């Protein structure tokens, strides 16, 4: 209250009156990342120059990261290329903090993946930690209890000395924050490629579960409701993080931007989660929004805009860590672990009792008003007076120039065939050596050195987790109802053909969900690209979004939300387009899930699907020949859907002892992972693949043709299973049998003792980073 009484002391703040009186004052719009016409538009909206606080708000909310100004016109198709049937289970679609899907029995789930790429390069530990924290708050904001996290990581080349710095920081940041939150980490991806050297990708996914009636939306619509900020205090961390970091390309000569990265406190977030869930249960919040990118600027304007209402806020009431913060800094601060609740007056007492129980600090900043206007005061002085919609939703929209890349035709022509790359086909020694080289290469080797640093047990509901193809969590302890998630992206395929590459990522994630026994239901994405100001990058983006939207329409599963990360480039060199696609699946009872490896001896091993000569962009071309060119594999989504149906049906009947997807490094990788999962050997023959599909041995082992899965089936279920495949027109070929030999024998090629395989498979990553 002391601050409140400090009337009329000349504070030096830029008031709305002052702004009206000094139209010609120079403002640093350019430094804040605004373009000249954007600044002019702000002046036009307000009918005067913005105050410095308003300028701060507009600049951060109109940044690429917050406004999606370059991507919006393409993201619309995710909402347009849908059938009514696809919307049946969609409770909340795109545009909210996260999409919400009805999974039955009165349960719903919400899931989303988001990037924290730029902060994680500058300060890997805190960047990755707060990436987890941010996505978890998005899930919490929907009224859900977060139930799991995953992460999708792309690092530079393993031999580059800077890679270890980023790997160690990012992995310990995720471990530190996620473990301390008590959320099981159920899977993810780790890829090394020199294209990510200066732009590592740190994408974090979270999923939450809620009862239908607990759904919360981020809106302030009832005049008189209180506007409460609660959680951690506001500090100087992450000021301008969004606009300065995510919307500018790294300039190697630039100054260190460390102070712009946020600092995370997972303990504060854990307490905040439990506190919020108790608030929801007590039904004392009318609307809620987390404070992430753009902090208070975002929360106030979005809540008001979503509710078609306004707000009156006293900014001096914000609890601060540092009393010297200016109003502009408070509005832009991205301090973590903060939430804003809209609380009906009659519920205020109950609200306060709950936050006090959890020892969470709060401040009552003001009230919701009917007039759709956002008024922010600093003491007695008005520093913001804007229509909230213009800040939150009516930002600029760009139709950026698009150009077919000059290099594209050359890249596509430079195929494995045209190069005449050596195939070891008839030389079994060489072929076996290639297999070994591939499965022990950094991208294909076991990632347990990373994943063993993550708690996948907490919660007691984890049914599948890494190294399985998908992560699966039980939602209902009564019925066993559960969900599973898989995420995939192949930047190399996307570089060769972004349209096809996005479809391939979708197909793989879809298949990974299906091999766990779940039914794919919905899609989220995190689209990581270079600079939108480069027309060739914009072409990649246009192609990838079209591929993903078309693919989802074909599979009949909707996109529920997503995130775009542009400017992933160093100088003129962009990363490979990396659209991470996450597919959510539902399973009636997690007890029916399918393991990813072999557990019992004497089971028959079947390969489902057919193998083509598709080695362009493959792991084989990368590891053996350091080559990238040609055309990525063909995708047949109708076949993928039929395959998923078959797996789901077979799982329901309990016919499958295991199922494993074939993707990177093809059959070779799947065989190695299947024997090592539970240490069960196998004898396999590949000659029949070559004969039936008319492909050589290199293809049989390493081709990355889509729509393929290996399953193991108990002898008693053999006839039934093969009949099921034939009835559904899924090509099925018996390629081996599991045994207790302690070896993986690939007939006429080589025999690998499991112990050797395990040691080789597990040693690579610790040797590099341990």
């Amino acid at each position: 209250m002391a601050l409140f009484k400090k009337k009329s002391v000349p504070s030096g703040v830029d008031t709305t009156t002052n702004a009206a009186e000094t139209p010609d004052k120079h403002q640093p719009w350019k430094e804040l990342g605004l373009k000249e016409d954007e600044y002019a538009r702000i002046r036009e909206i307000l009918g005067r120059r913005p105050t410095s606080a308003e300028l701060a708000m507009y600049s951060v909310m109109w940044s690429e990261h917050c406004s999606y100004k370059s991507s919006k016109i393409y993201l619309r198709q995710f909402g347009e290329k849908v059938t009514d049937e696809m919307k049946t289970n969609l409770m909340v679609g795109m545009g909210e903090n996260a999409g919400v899907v009805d999974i039955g029995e009165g349960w719903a789930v919400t899931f989303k993946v988001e990037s924290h790429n730029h902060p994680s390069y500058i300060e890997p530990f805190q960047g990755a930690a707060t990436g987890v924290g941010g996505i978890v708050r998005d899930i919490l904001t929907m009224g859900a209890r977060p139930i799991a996290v995953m992460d999708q990581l792309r690092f530079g080349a393993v031999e580059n000395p800077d890679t270890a710095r980023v790997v160690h920081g990012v992995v310990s940041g995720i471990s530190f924050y996620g473990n301390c939150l008590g959320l099981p980490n159920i899977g993810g991806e780790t890829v090394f490629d020199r294209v990510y050297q200066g732009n590592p990708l740190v994408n974090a996914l979270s999923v939450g579960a809620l009862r239908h009636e607990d759904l919360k939306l981020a809106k302030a619509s009832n005049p008189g409701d209180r506007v409460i900020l609660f959680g951690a205090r506001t500090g100087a961390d992450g000021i301008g993080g969004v606009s300065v970091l995510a919307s500018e390309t790294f300039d190697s000569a630039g100054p260190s931007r460390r102070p712009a990265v946020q600092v995370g406190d997972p303990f504060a977030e854990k307490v905040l989660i439990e506190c919020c869930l108790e608030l929801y249960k007590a039904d004392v919040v009318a609307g809620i929004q987390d404070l992430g990118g753009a902090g208070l600027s975002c929360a106030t304007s979005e809540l008001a805009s979503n509710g078609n209402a306004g707000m009156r806020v006293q900014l001096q009431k914000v609890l601060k860590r540092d009393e010297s913060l200016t109003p502009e800094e408070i509005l832009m601060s991205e301090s973590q672990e903060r939430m804003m609740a809209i609380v009906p007056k009659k519920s205020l007492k109950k609200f306060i009792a709950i936050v006090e129980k959890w020892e969470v600090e709060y401040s009552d900043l003001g009230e919701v008003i009917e007039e759709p206007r956002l008024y922010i005061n600093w003491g007695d002085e008005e520093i913001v007076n804007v229509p909230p919609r213009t800040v939150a939703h009516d930002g600029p929209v760009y139709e950026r120039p698009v150009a077919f890349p000059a290099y594209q035709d050359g890249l596509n022509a430079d195929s494995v065939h045209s190069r005449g790359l050596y195939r070891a086909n008839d030389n079994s020694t060489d072929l076996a050596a290639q297999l070994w080289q591939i499965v022990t290469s950094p991208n294909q080797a076991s990632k347990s050195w990373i994943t063993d640093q993550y708690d996948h047990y907490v919660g007691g509901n984890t049914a599948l987790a890494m190294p399985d193809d998908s992560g699966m969590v039980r939602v209902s302890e009564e019925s066993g109802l559960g969900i599973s998630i898989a995420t995939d992206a192949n930047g190399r395929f996307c570089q060769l053909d972004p349209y096809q590459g996005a479809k391939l990522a979708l197909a793989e994630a879809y298949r990974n969900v299906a091999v766990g026994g779940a039914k794919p239901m919905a899609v989220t994405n995190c689209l990581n690209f270079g600079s939108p100001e480069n027309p060739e990058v914009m072409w990649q983006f246009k192609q990838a979004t079209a591929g993903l939207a078309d693919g989802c329409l074909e599979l009949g599963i909707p996109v529920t939300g997503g995130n775009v990360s542009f400017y992933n480039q160093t100088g003129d060199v962009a990363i490979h387009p990396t659209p991470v696609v996450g597919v959510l699946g539902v399973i009636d009872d997690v007890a029916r899930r399918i393991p990813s490896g072999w557990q019992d001896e004497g089971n028959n091993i079947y390969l489902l699907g057919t193998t083509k000569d598709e080695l362009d962009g493959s792991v084989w071309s990368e590891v053996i020949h350091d080559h990238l060119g040609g055309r990525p594999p063909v995708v047949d989504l109708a076949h993928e859907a039929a395959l998923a149906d078959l797996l789901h049906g077979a799982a329901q009947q309990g016919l499958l002892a295991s199922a494993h997807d074939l993707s990177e490094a093809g059959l070779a990788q799947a065989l190695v992972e299947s024997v090592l999962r539970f240490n069960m050997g196998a004898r396999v023959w590949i000659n029949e693949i070559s004969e039936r599909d008319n492909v050589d041995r290199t293809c049989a082992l390493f081709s990355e043709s889509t729509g393929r899965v290996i399953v193991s089936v108990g002898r008693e279920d053999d006839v039934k299973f093969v009949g099921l495949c034939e009835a559904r027109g899924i090509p099925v070929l018996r390629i081996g049998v599991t045994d207790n030999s302690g070896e993986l024998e690939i007939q006429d090629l080589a025999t690998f003792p499991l112990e050797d395989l395990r040691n080789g498979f597990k040693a690579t990553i610790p040797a590099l980073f341990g």
Partner: protein
Amino acid sequence: MKIGVVTFPGTLDDRDAARAVRIAGAEAVSLWHADADLKKVDAVVLPGGFSYGDYLRCGAIAAQAPVMKEIIKKANQGLPVLGICNGFQVLVESHLLPGGLIRNSDQHFICRDQGLRVENTSTAWTNQFELNQEITIPLKNGEGGYIATAAELERLEGEGLVTFRYIGGNPNGSMNDIAGLRNERGNVVGLMPHPEHAVEPGFGPDTSSAMRSGVDGLLFFKSVLHSLVNA
């Protein structure tokens, strides 16, 4: 039978511990850190997590919580208390068990299925195990390295207070491979691995028979029920 499960701010495995209590056949009663009332429970579980963010030192602040004053008093009178992971750290910080726990020797958080040997079955929480039984339960912590002075170690070993020892590799540099301890009376037991994550088929560690089917942790909770019934 009523078994209390304490929640400190930052506790993570409280719901899991309560589930384990229920699966074992008892009633789980939730106890709040700020509340000195033990609600007439017959035993207490201090679950894992990062109480108070583990700031200062793991378990150090939690050891000073109002609920702990009451638990320490009752534990000294014979109330069965099980400390799991962070709960073990709280017991050590409360001086209900000797020694200390420091950062894992490789400096990383580690989550894995861990082999243990049960070396003492004369406790409220291990009486249903066979002596020297080898069990597998999940381990997940960043600061699980057990330390004690040479004299203390000698006493622990001499008096048979070492209740669990790591087998198949020491995961965190613990002295003498110590994974868990009991007090002299046998009513207080603390260990770093998590028995509550190995109580339900489908959600525990892998076994040779099936994925995630390990339930070795259930005997901890069955043991305390057995000791309460026979008390």
